[in-house]
């Protein structure tokens, strides 16, 4: 059963029933799910959670859903110790939280699983979202499993190949002509006009809660402790705030010691409104026009930007931006050292982590977790220059002449 009690405004504290509403009527600030933590603490324990299913639903008692859940196998992704990458970067203990291994290959499955479960509970027959990739695929897959109709709005300039991983689940895909800003405006108006469960608008408060499970898993997989440092990418800021919330909830419930984790936020320099605010020392996140190859985190007006900024400051963390070149190098470094092919947002994290270790913001002996949020096959075009096969004739001589010689030469260079 759920211990959620209401939706509460983060700014003014106004309370609302657990319905499909995401903004406070009074001050237009986001609404958060509030819980009866006292009752929850009597039910949850390390042992009870650890004996649950090997998915995010082992934490169902900490989520705002009742009854049967929409489960496509999301969560409990590997936390992999990465000694090769650690050596390369100058760290002693580095782990990758590998959310590439979710059913639609991104962390969005966590958030969408909760939002779609809630949509069904609230009686919606249709769900919708606006996305350039990861969210669209996740919504389409979960809607298929839940037997709900799905509308997915995508900017018309996205290559068709990018939406195969969405269209295959059978949603109605609508390609909207016009700029990124125009698509945003349209989707807000659609959300006001149609009685759909708009995953990241009207259902956003529930959608957000699914992301907490990433924080829970990190702590559980580290044998019930929070790490010294977490490095995570940020687009709308939602995931970042929820990792922080997840760790703090576990501490509040007495499942881990008080959280002393530095939350480090990375954005692409072509879309870094939160980093800009951090560097300027302000609390207001000024929107920007996004221009970066890291399209999955190109959000110019981040809904949770202020709260992500606050999590960085509260935790004594830092925020930094990396260039497109650094992103590509980060993707290649992760693949080459750990066998993990992440999409551009993963390149952002590795590049940012590298810079933070070099600058001393993350110390050599800090137990560090880097969050890789989606798989590389989704953005493989940015690293297509790795395709440089050695072409040979179908003879042993040709192999020995072309391949062995080049390998010997490469070894000599090393």
């Amino acid at each position, binding site marked *: 059963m759920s211990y959620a009690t209401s939706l509460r405004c983060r700014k003014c504290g106004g309370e609302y029933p657990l319905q499909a509403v995401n903004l406070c009527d009074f001050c*237009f600030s986001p609404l958060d799910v509030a819980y009866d933590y006292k009752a929850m603490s009597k039910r949850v324990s390390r042992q009870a959670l650890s004996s649950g299913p090997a998915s995010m639903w082992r934490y169902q008692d900490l989520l705002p859903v009742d009854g049967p859940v929409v489960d496509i196998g999301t969560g409990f992704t590997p936390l992999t110790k990465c000694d090769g990458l650690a050596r390369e970067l100058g760290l002693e203990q580095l782990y990758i939280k590998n959310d590439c291994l979710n059913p639609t290959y991104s962390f969005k499955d966590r958030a969408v699983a909760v939002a779609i479960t809630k949509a069904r509970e609230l009686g919606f027959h249709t769900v919708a979202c*606006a996305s350039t990739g990861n969210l669209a695929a996740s919504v389409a897959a979960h809607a298929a499993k839940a037997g709900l109709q799905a509308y997915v709005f995508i900017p018309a300039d996205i290559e068709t190949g990018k939406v195969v991983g969405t269209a295959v689940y059978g949603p109605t895909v609508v390609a909207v002509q016009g700029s990124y800003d125009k698509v945003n405006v349209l989707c807000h108006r659609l959300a006001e006009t149609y009685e759909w469960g708009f995953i990241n608008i009207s259902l956003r408060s529930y959608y957000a809660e699914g992301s907490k499970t990433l924080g829970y898993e990190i702590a559980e997989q580290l044998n019930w402790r929070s790490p010294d440092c977490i490095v995570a990418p940020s687009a709308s800021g939602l995931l970042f705030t929820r990792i922080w919330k997840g760790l703090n909830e576990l501490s509040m419930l007495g499942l881990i010691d008080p959280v002393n984790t530095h939350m480090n936020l990375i954005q692409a320099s072509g879309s870094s409104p939160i980093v800009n605010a951090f560097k300027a020392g302000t609390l207001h996140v000024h929107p920007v026009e996004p221009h970066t190859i890291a399209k999955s985190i190109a*959000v110019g*007006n981040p809904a949770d*930007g202020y709260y992500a900024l606050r999590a960085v400051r509260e935790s004594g963390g830092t925020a930094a931006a990396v260039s497109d070149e650094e992103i590509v190098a980060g993707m290649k470094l992760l693949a080459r050292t750990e066998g993990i092919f992440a999409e551009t947002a993963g390149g952002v994290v590795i590049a940012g982590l590298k810079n933070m270790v070099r600058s001393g913001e993350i110390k050599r002996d800090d137990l560090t977790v880097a969050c890789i949020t989606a798989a590389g096959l989704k953005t493989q075009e940015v690293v297509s220059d790795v395709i440089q096969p050695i072409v040979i004739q179908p003879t042993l001589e040709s192999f020995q002449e072309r391949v062995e010689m080049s390998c010997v030469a490469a070894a000599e260079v090393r």
Partner: protein
Amino acid sequence: MSKRRVMFTFPPERIEEPVIYLLGHQFGVVTNIRRADVTENKGWVVLELEGTDENIDRGIAWVSAKGIRVDSASGDVVEG
């Protein structure tokens, strides 16, 4: 009549102009401020606009043409 929840971000040179008053006066849009932070060198205002869709669209285009950024109050919804 429609309602739209927006955020205006003002560049320093526009802070002293009565933009919100003029928006209401010239375009027949009712403006209702909910949150704001304005200092001498920066300013943002979160407000609700109420009027016909056409008037709101024309009003927002006029505000944008002044170099004032207009965004949704609830952030971007197109995600990765």
